[in-house]
């Protein structure tokens, strides 16, 4: 099991568990980031943080620290 921020650019995975709590958890859900959601890492910023992810058709940047608690599984090609 790895965290969302472990994805390398170009890798896809499925969210298996969101361990974040509170307001941020709600925010993730509101952009559609829930268990079972397919995500793809599409970019990394010059300082390696944040990374950009394709989530339900939108490209969204999230700081590594903020998505370390989002667990993903299975490389989907």
């Amino acid at each position, binding site marked *: 099991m790895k965290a969302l921020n472990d994805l390398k650019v170009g890798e896809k995975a499925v969210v298996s568990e969101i361990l*974040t709590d509170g*307001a941020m958890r709600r925010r993730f859900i*509101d952009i559609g980031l829930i268990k079972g959601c397919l995500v793809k890492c599409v970019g990394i*910023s010059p300082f390696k943080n*944040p990374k950009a992810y394709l989530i*339900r*058709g*939108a490209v969204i940047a*999230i700081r590594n620290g903020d998505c370390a608690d989002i667990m993903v599984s299975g490389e989907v090609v």
Partner: protein
Amino acid sequence: MELKKTIALMGNPNVGKSTVFNALTGMKQHTGNWAGKTVETATGYFKSNSTTYEMTDLPGTYSLFTHSAEESVARDFLCFENSDKTVVVCSASCLERSLILALQCMEIKNDIIICVNLLDEAERMGYKIDLEKLSEILNVRVVGTVARNKKSLSNLIKNLNYKDTKSDFKIEYPKIIENAIKIIETTLENFDFNINKRFLSLRILEQNRSFLEKVKLQNGKSVMEISEIKASLSEALDYLKKEGLYENRISDFIASAVVKMAEITASEVISKTKSQYSKRTETADKILTHKFSGFGIMLLGLCLVFWITIYGANYLSNGLSFLFSYIEKFLESFFDFIKLPNLIKDIIIDGAFKVTSWVVSVMLPPMAIFFPLFTFLEDIGYLPRIAYNLDEPFNRCKSCGKQALTMCMGFGCNAAGVTGCRIIDSKRDRILAIITNSLVPCNGRFPAIIAIISMFLVTLGGFFGSLLEAFILTLVIMLSVAFTLISTKILSATLFKGTPSAFTLEMPPYRKPQILKILVRSLLDRTAFVLGRAVTVAVPAGIIIWLFANVKIGDLSLLAHISAFLDPVASLLGLDGVILLAFILGLPANEIVIPIIIMGYLSASSLTDLPSLNIMKDIFIQNGWTIKTAINFIIFCLFHWPCSTTLMTIKKETGSLKLAVFSALLPTLIGVLLCFFINLIF
């Protein structure tokens, strides 16, 4: 009889809501390609079929349940204002996500129209959307639009005109939730809270405090204080627990059901074909956010923008000052002709007119050129990329990444940057961003900096001269960004301790900017605005400074007295009394600082003719300016109190006078310290 209807405009950020709004109402809400720029609600009117529509553009939001200030505005409007129709603008290129909000809205209101915008973009991305099927599945009116093209909105208007049998839409939740809802809804039958009962039951079930507080405010009675409701809630909670769903996961469970429904609906109506378009955005992103080329392009781009500004402004300036010297001659002979007393003539021409003409001829041109360029970058979608590139430094300074966005807005106008800070959720991060916003120079301060750079730091003329000026200006900007970071870091280690809140930064697809519209809008609106400000601020300032210079106390003019009074402080900073006075008088608008300095110098000397712009430098030198003065002026221009509009905006946004005062003190302190040390060392 004339009918009146009210319409609420909802939608995710950056789906084209403001564009729809502007096209329908003819108003000029700010549009731009990044999430979070509509932070204030706006209301406009339009007529169709003898019905007057009152339309309210609500701040963009991802969901009805998130907690940032501007997002709850949208939710509260939807829940508690009785609008006749609600238009939910969705993005066709990102329909699945847009539908989440649309579904949430449909749970509250039964008069929804879904407006699927950005159809052109979706088509380029290879998406085909079956609007009829969408309408069928959700049992709701659906229209497709391309908001930039006004004609495509006629369909939306047509749909607004229809009288509807209210649709009866329900999101099907998993069985156990439905059962729990039933328990609470049955109890609610006996009460009236003026809101959809099923929706309220769900919120009670997930114990959404902030929402229930609002319901209490609206109704004067608290839902959770009614014992029957409390009893049914605990009954429902007990039931769910028995089914294995714990209290703290209920809200997740409900929200996920909505997201899944959006997912299923979207998959049924979208068909995807192959397209190169997303590839191109990806490639552009690779280059613009690359380790090396990302920063290279950012700095070069900044340099280029400044170069165009400086080079173009030069021509405009010369033309305008030529024009003004004619107008002055004309005014003079006209006043002679009507035999205006000399005193009044002097006040008008040497006071009001001169300052105004300098503001317009020297300060206006760079602003008139910089602003459309800035808007261009905004429209194309570059701002979020800057924020993305710069996020890690902001992260190290313990601030929210969206601060990079509000900082960028500050380059346009600090007051706008401060208002823009509403996109930052956490209070601490927002205050940090607000306080440090005026550390970057706004559009009104650029011209002064440019003028001084071209007079003192770059003696080279022509093409290479302007290139060098642009380069120096870029360095100046980097200095201001550096100080934004440093102050943020120091503040977050001292007065505003804490960790930055997590955030998500949306990076929209690049969009073709509407060049013509940008030009027309920024030239007309912006120029009109600056001209208006020039007249309202420069005229009185010109008169004041003229009076200062000509009212004598003892042997010396009032101006000499004041500047002699300010001189000791000013000279510690490597400036002089007149300069400091100009900054003080420039509080209402930074554009007038340089014109006031010139006025001050001129009236003290016995020069009577209006000097051409070219010999402005001589006047400065005669009054003791050196390169050191120039550098200190630039530093002080970067770091001193923000203009009064910005200060008032800070007071309004933070609700605290203390913070407004602090935001004035912080940059001033930085400026004073820097100038003091530069003066000491060199």
